[in-house]
């Protein structure tokens, strides 16, 4: 009992894996025959939309799946809580635990064991992943109950949880990479869950490939880490930073190269400019998947990775600047797209891209704690927003277009209330979780030594836009007159408890989740920063001093409070504008759009980035490859080969008396040449 529960930390990823195996067996042996029988009856059709389909008597195995799926994640959550409590019981400098499971890849001096690491940073991550993950699993059991491939869904969802936990618990970059690509796979499988729909399988493929572009950078970064540090284990790499910087092995250039390569990976996984294009399309997946993978957990992996590598990033001012700039640019760029989207999930998708931008902005200005803090609060309120939108979609038999909603407040009271709370949180209304985390980022963007007033201004403006598009969403969906199809309106219903209870719990978290990080200036105490301090102090010690995280000390309190008030004011302006446009003067938005048709179309069409990529890369590569194949391979190389063959055959005619048979001819000619060659080599 030296370490007690910590010795069982392996259970955290293992329990979801158990779920994969159990549900997998059910999917294979119980569900597959049923689906096949249906397919054989030529039963075409339903089940392709989001969360609707025929009602049929549920097979008994479905109850089992609906239990196993959430239960394993819930159990992992319990283990996580106990383990984190055990960790918290230790003194701050000793909050670190590594468990080596088995040697994995080892060759020459390279060694990457399969090992798990629990420290304050991974603690936060596993609590978010298993906690929010559990609620979403429970919700899924209700939301997906009409789906035929029910067990398959939970196989993927459990597999995702396993991979995500591997990602955050791994004790070296390679194990992180296992989780990294593992979550990418699950994302691919879940986006393409309705694989009969071309748009869904396209979106899944796009997600995987764009992520692979990021992984390419990640992998090169890992190579450079290994050949610089001689190891890929976090503790060893970070411990060597001071030494190798001192003896000149780890130059700023190398640190810049390593961190920029890693950041390419983060850009892909966390959907930042220029690789964000896959995330909006990922909304093709079932809505709980969007909540879990494409809002609360997987897409934050890039932020986690940058924060984990903070000691390396801090060595390179260039990289820090790039991270902050990309984050801020993405935050405002995708917020503007969010204004014009009419699909409720797409608004949330662009919002997620934008919020991830905030997290990177935080990391880029050295406020890693603030970045992780926002990661956590965002997981609460964005998961809630997605699940709420799922509840709306569920109620409307699959309708996702906000132009066909309205007045849902009275039909869906719980969904409305909880979503409204989340909207207040993301808009940055004081007292709610999003306020504290976003405000800390804004303050650090301004005050940190890596910060800049321009970064603050962009982020504050984006905050206003965020408030605007979120309230636009709420007004269009829940207020005003009904624009629903009559047939749809007849069936509108509040969702079952399995879905509303997770909503309520997440609403509570969206409110109180920020209270563990109330800044000193508001007479609070930032427990969150204190908890993470040991992880990020390491980085600060290795590089440019602790000023990044504590720069606030140099600025007067009045300034901090003033900026805070300013950002709240910007948010209120956004809300006010949304109220004016979507509650008071409801034809105004249309008039504005018609007044600037060019600009509106550009934004509505997401700045045509997909089309530009398609033109610049996709089509060129495909057409170029066809040329390579037909002109180079078939015509040129084979032309030479067949030409030689013809020439040999021609020459062979001369010696036909000696040789018969085609192959023999060639063989003889070649042998003759060989003998001549031997002669040449031996006599020279």
């Amino acid at each position, binding site marked *: 009992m030296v370490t007690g529960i910590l010795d069982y930390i392996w259970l955290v990823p293992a329990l979801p894996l158990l779920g994969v195996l159990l549900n997998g067996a059910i999917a294979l042996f119980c569900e*597959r025959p049923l689906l*096949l029988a249906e*397919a*054989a009856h*030529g039963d075409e059709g339903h089940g392709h939309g989001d969360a609707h389909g025929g009602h049929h008597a549920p097979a008994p195995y479905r109850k089992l799946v609906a239990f196993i799926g959430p239960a394993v994640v819930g159990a992992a959550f319990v283990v996580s809580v106990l383990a984190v409590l055990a960790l918290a019981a230790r003194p701050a400098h000793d909050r670190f635990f590594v468990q080596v499971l*088995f040697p*994995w*890849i*080892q*060759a*020459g001096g*390279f060694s990457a064991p399969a090992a798990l690491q629990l420290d304050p940073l991974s603690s936060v991550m596993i609590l978010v992943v298993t906690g929010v993950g559990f609620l979403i699993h429970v919700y899924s059991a209700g939301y997906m109950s009409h789906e035929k491939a029910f067990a398959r869904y939970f196989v993927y969802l459990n597999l995702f949880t396993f991979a995500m936990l591997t990602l955050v618990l791994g004790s070296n970059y*390679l194990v992180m990479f*296992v989780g*990294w*690509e*593992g979550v990418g*796979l699950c994302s*691919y499988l879940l986006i*393409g869950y309705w*694989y*009969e729909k*071309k748009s869904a*399988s*396209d979106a899944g*493929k796009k997600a*995987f*490939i764009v992520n*692979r572009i990021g*992984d*390419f950078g990640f*992998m*090169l970064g*890992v*190579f*450079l880490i*290994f*050949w610089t540090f001689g190891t890929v284990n976090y503790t060893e790499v970070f411990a060597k930073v001071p030494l190798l910087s001192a003896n000149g092995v780890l130059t700023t250039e190398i640190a810049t190269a390593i961190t920029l390569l890693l950041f390419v990976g983060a850009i892909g996984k966390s959907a930042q400019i220029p690789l964000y294009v896959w995330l909006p399309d990922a909304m093709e997946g079932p809505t709980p998947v969007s909540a879990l993978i494409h809002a609360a957990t997987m897409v934050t992996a890039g932020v986690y990775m940058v924060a984990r590598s903070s000691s390396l990033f801090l060595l390179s001012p260039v990289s820090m600047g790039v991270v902050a700039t990309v984050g801020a640019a993405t935050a405002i760029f995708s917020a503007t797209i969010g204004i014009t989207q009419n699909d409720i999930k797409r608004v949330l998708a662009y919002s997620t891209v934008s919020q991830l931008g905030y997290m990177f902005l935080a990391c880029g200005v050295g406020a890693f704690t603030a970045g992780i803090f926002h990661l956590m609060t965002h997981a609460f309120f964005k998961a809630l927003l997605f699940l709420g939108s799922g509840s709306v979609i569920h109620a409307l038999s699959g309708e996702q277009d906000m132009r066909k909603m309205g007045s849902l407040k009275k039909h869906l009271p719980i969904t409305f209330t909880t979503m409204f709370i989340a909207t207040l949180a993301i808009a940055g209304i004081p007292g709610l979780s999003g306020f504290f985390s976003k405000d800390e980022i804004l303050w650090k963007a301004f005050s940190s030594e890596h910060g800049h007033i321009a970064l603050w201004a962009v982020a504050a403006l984006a905050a206003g836009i965020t408030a605007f598009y979120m309230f636009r969403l709420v007004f269009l969906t829940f207020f005003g007159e009904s624009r629903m199809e009559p047939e749809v309106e007849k069936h509108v219903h509040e969702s079952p408890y399995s879905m509303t209870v997770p909503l309520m719990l997440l609403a509570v978290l969206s409110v109180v989740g920020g209270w563990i990080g109330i800044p000193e200036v508001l007479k609070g105490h930032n427990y969150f920063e204190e908890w993470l301090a040991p992880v990020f102090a390491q980085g600060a010690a290795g590089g440019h001093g602790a000023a990044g995280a504590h720069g606030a000390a140099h600025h007067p309190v009045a300034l901090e409070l003033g900026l805070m008030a300013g950002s709240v004011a910007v948010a209120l302006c956004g809300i006010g504008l949304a109220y004016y446009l979507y509650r008071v003067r409801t034809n105004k938005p249309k008039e504005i759009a018609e007044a600037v048709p060019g600009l509106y179309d550009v934004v509505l069409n997401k700045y045509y980035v997909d089309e530009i990529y398609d033109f610049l890369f996709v089509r060129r*590569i*495909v057409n*170029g*490859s066809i040329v*390579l*194949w037909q002109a180079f*391979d*078939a015509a040129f*190389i*084979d032309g030479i*080969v067949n030409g030689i*063959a013809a020439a040999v055959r021609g020459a062979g005619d001369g010696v036909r008396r000696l040789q018969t048979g085609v*192959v023999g001819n*060639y063989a003889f000619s*070649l*042998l003759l*040449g*060989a003998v001549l*060659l*031997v002669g040449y*080599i*031996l006599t020279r």
Partner: protein
Amino acid sequence: MTWIPAYLSSNLLTALIFFPLAGALLLFFLPRENPRLIRNATLLVTLVEFLLSLPVAIGFNGATAAMQFVQRVPWIPGYGIEYHVGVDGISLWLVMLTTFLMPIAILSTYEAVEKHVKEFMIFMLVLEVGMVGVFLAIDLFLFYIFWELVLIPMYFLIGVWGSERRIYSAIKFFLYTFAGSVLMLVAIIALYFHHYAATGVYTTNLLRMYELSIPVKLQFWMFAAFALAFAFKVPMFPFHTWLPDAHVDAPTAGSVILAAVLLKMGTYGFLRFAMPLFPVAAVDLMPLVATLAVIGIIYGALVAMVQKDMKKLVAYSSVSHLGFVMLGLFAFNVQGIEGGILQMINHGVSTGALFLIVGIIYERRHTRLIEEFGGLSKVVPLYALVFMIVTLSSVGLPGTNGFVGEFLILLGAFKTAKWYTVFAATGVILSAVYMLWMFQRVMFGKITNEKNRHLPDLKPREIAYMLPLLVMIFWIGVYPQTFLRKMDASVSAAVTRIETKRQAALGERPQGETLLARYFDVKK
């Protein structure tokens, strides 16, 4: 190894080489009217052969670089030619791959090969003799015989049991590889006489050749001859055009063996002969080899992407994967070479599995055109699952075998050839593009072709031969230790040998000598 009696262990490899030949002789006496009996007998022979090979893998001592299970008998004494076989950490898993895949390949022919079953099976068994022999031979002459022995049955397998353009493809295959063989023969003979000139002893013993210090100019020519011979076989860009044709026209089992084992004879040849015998030339020409490897990786992937025929797509993907292997070997460090060897095995498992998967669908629909399919996941879910796992292994997803090999290769190559590696790593992106695109077009979407609506899912026989491949995919992916640790000593020894011999050969030469001066006496 102590638990294997000496009289057994010294004969084990010989038994391993010639047991399939005994099996082939047995087949002569079986009635051709009973193909079922012939098939089962062949399966039994290959299974017994696999069991025979297990003690080699288990008893193999990974801590020593020496040849193990050695058998050495004078054969043609006047010429110093011996029957000399042994196994080390470089050849061990290639032998195991061969014996492991043969029963699988045989099992896949049960319904696919209908005509001349007896001859087909005899050729398959003779092929196995050649393949196992190639990897076990230590004597150059013996090696050459096995090398040629492989060529003949494969030529007939493609030419007789192949599809439409089988004659063209078979001849193309023969021409390319025979051209390579002749070049190699030239180099072997030259090496043989050089050894005599240097030591006064005639020998074809490879281990003695390793001790030679070959003048650098001669190294260049001999390396060129060996490298060209092996490059045809691998095949390296731009000598790859025989491969897609041979694969498309070969019967499934032939494709499996061709991709999984025959191509590895080329990469194995580099590692066993061209690199350690001529280290100065090998290192000097690394930029050329690595460039061709990287072109192969990217070119193979791009061309694979636009193929319409599933089998041709898989064939071009082989060009890409083998490019990785070559890059790893020419990293000249432990990570790169161990990764390269592991990737040879991985490619055998994964690409073998892909050819089987294509074969399964071909047997049902008699077409391999991607556009003929679509939406198959719904009617053949088991097939879809297996196909997906193999696809992921082929794109190198962590947790599968493909990742471990690719990662070690790129890690090793990054040290010695940074920019080549950066370009090679784009292959990781491209493989996802062509594999997932094919998977999508074949398996996802709605069923658009009525002929696909009632396709039967995997049969028990098909599950039986796919299952071992899936096990290997995860075994190597999760616990590669089993495989890597047996390579350690041999690979380290090879790396050291190459480096020390290179240093020794370059000892007296001026610093900063250009390659033109070194090999062609071209002074500035």
